[in-house]
């Protein structure tokens, strides 16, 4: 799946491809030279509009922060100056003329890639800067600043081609006045780009920055390969649970159904890692490694039962049933429950790929657990939860005469706070990764979720001893 990083990598490649011929080949006609200058403007314009796009959520988030009162951070100041300088050069006509023609040259394709990347970012945010997706929720202002720094590097690369381009244009017969007007010694813009690219972007070497990991918001399900299909469907489930946090009114049935996938994902992954969940003895509470996955499956089972107590007042508007059915078919294909050997230690690439995908699914379930907990808490806070009093646990009823009477009458009641808190507590049990001591590395070949980078090295060490 295409990510922001993919689009920017393609853009950088096209920018280099556009600049290279200027070093070795002449432009043969004035028209050819003017076209090249137009393409040069197109890339710069795309950089400016992309810069504005990244500044938009960052500036909204900074409103009211102390740092804002003290002035914008260096990266933002440099980015604004760079974008304004570019806009002065290329004009403010919208759409930019380059957008109306097909991208047939490397620089035009670079511009197209940059605009696509800007649109990709935009689809992750609401118009007021709120995140629309869990990936966007992981992006803070530092990540956006790091994105501006990346743009500064691209701008510096593009602007370095100004002098060769001006010389080639003169060589091709373009009048000096025209060259001077279209390429008016952009040294100041180059300085701004260099300043921007020199800002510390806070990038660490071992994790992919969240901005670069941004995938498409719409998840196409690729059904040609079970491994990629598993990743796609888990990604879509994560998005569905994230959406429920914003509108949880009818989410209860969906939350309940999702717990079954939590059970299945952990059981199949445990089987892949040799835990023998069909025959093996029940692991102890301090179990580590693959057995910790069995315990996590049990935690999802407990959650399934807890959520089943409550009445589902309305049918869910958006169901995840298609994904659940597909996952229920996929998981046995990838990791049969009756496996007797540990497949995680096999060196075969196919086996490693399946392992990475399953581990990614386990990590994604922690995100799903977190979003589900938020959705359930939101439902509980609205006071719309109901259950039959006969489904109340005995210990709750014993101390409360009203509840006891309701239980005798099998009355429909609002659940006591102790019960909803217990369910929220059950969600807490599934939010952290079952295996804590993880090295970092991405695992699936789709866009990387926040949790996925932690999964590759799931070498089945040290589970949380408190669990």
């Amino acid at each position, binding site marked *: 799946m295409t990510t922001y990083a993919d689009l920017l990598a393609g853009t950088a490649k096209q920018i280099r491809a556009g600049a290279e011929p200027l070093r070795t080949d002449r432009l043969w006609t004035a028209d050819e030279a003017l076209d090249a200058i137009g393409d040069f403007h197109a890339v710069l314009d795309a950089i400016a509009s992309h810069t504005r796009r990244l500044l938009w959520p960052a500036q909204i988030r900074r409103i009211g922060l102390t740092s804002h009162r003290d002035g914008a951070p260096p990266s933002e100041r440099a980015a604004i100056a760079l974008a304004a300088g570019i806009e002065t050069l290329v004009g403010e006509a919208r759409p930019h003329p380059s957008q109306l023609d097909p991208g047939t040259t490397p620089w035009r394709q670079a511009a197209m890639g940059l605009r696509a990347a800007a649109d990709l970012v935009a689809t992750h945010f609401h118009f007021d800067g709120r995140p629309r997706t869990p990936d966007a929720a992981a992006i803070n202002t530092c990540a956006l600043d790091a994105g501006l720094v990346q743009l500064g590097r691209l701008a510096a690369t593009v602007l370095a081609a100004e002098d060769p381009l001006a010389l080639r244009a003169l060589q091709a017969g373009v009048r000096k006045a025209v060259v001077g007007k279209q390429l008016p010694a952009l040294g100041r813009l180059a300085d701004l780009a260099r300043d921007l690219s020199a800002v510390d972007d806070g990038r660490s070497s071992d994790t992919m920055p969240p901005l670069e990991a941004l995938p498409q918001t719409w998840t196409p399900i690729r059904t040609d390969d079970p491994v990629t299909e598993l990743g796609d469907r888990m990604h879509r489930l994560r998005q569905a649970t994230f959406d429920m946090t914003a509108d949880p009114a009818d989410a209860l049935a969906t939350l309940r159904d999702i717990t079954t996938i939590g059970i*299945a994902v952990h*059981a199949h992954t445990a*089987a892949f890692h040799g835990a023998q*969940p069909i025959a093996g003895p029940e692991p102890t509470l301090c179990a580590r490694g693959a057995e910790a996955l069995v315990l996590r499956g049990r935690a999802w*089972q407990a959650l399934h*039962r807890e959520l*089943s107590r409550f009445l589902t007042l309305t049918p869910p508007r958006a169901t995840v049933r298609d994904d659940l059915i597909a996952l229920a078919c996929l998981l046995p294909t990838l990791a049969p429950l*009756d496996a007797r050997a540990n497949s995680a230690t096999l060196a075969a690439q196919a086996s490693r790929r399946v392992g990475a995908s399953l581990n990614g699914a386990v990590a994604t379930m922690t995100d799903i657990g977190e979003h589900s907990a938020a959705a359930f808490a939101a439902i509980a806070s609205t006071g719309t939860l109901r259950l039959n009093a006969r489904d109340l646990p005995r210990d709750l009823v014993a101390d409360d005469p009203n509840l006891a009477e309701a239980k005798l009458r099998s*009355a429909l009641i609002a659940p006591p706070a102790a019960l909803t808190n217990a369910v929220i507590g059950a969600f807490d049990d599934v939010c952290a990764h079952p295996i804590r001591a993880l090295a970092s590395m991405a695992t699936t070949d789709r866009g990387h979720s926040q949790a996925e980078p932690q999964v590759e090295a799931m070498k089945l060490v040290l589970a949380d001893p408190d669990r």
Partner: protein
Amino acid sequence: MSTTWTQPAQTLISEATAGWEGIWSLTYAAGFGALNLAMSVPLGVGVSISYAAMDFRDAQDELEWARPNLRAIATALRLGHVRDVDDTAEARAILDQLAAAALDRAAGLAEIELDLSDQAALSRVMSRLITGRAKVTGRWA
């Protein structure tokens, strides 16, 4: 096993009415029993039973959306945990019998219900019961 699940289940199957209440009672018992059975057996064995519990519960939801008072008035038989893992096969069979009984009654009711929305609800209930039976008996896995 036969002392904890068989007797009450057989009683419910023979005494449940042919109407909405009877279907709900049978479906509820199957769903509740599946939840408890899934937690009583090894996790890997419980996966398909949890899927079945999901389907039975979805069927129960469909019934309650069609007749919102069922949850309050219909008989709710709660099948508890299965203590002996060796009884798993028999427990699966009992859940299957409960679901089959609910399915028969739903099919019969759909024949005489005149309201189109009720017929549609019963169709969805039957669909869930069929898939739930397939999962609980292991035919689907």
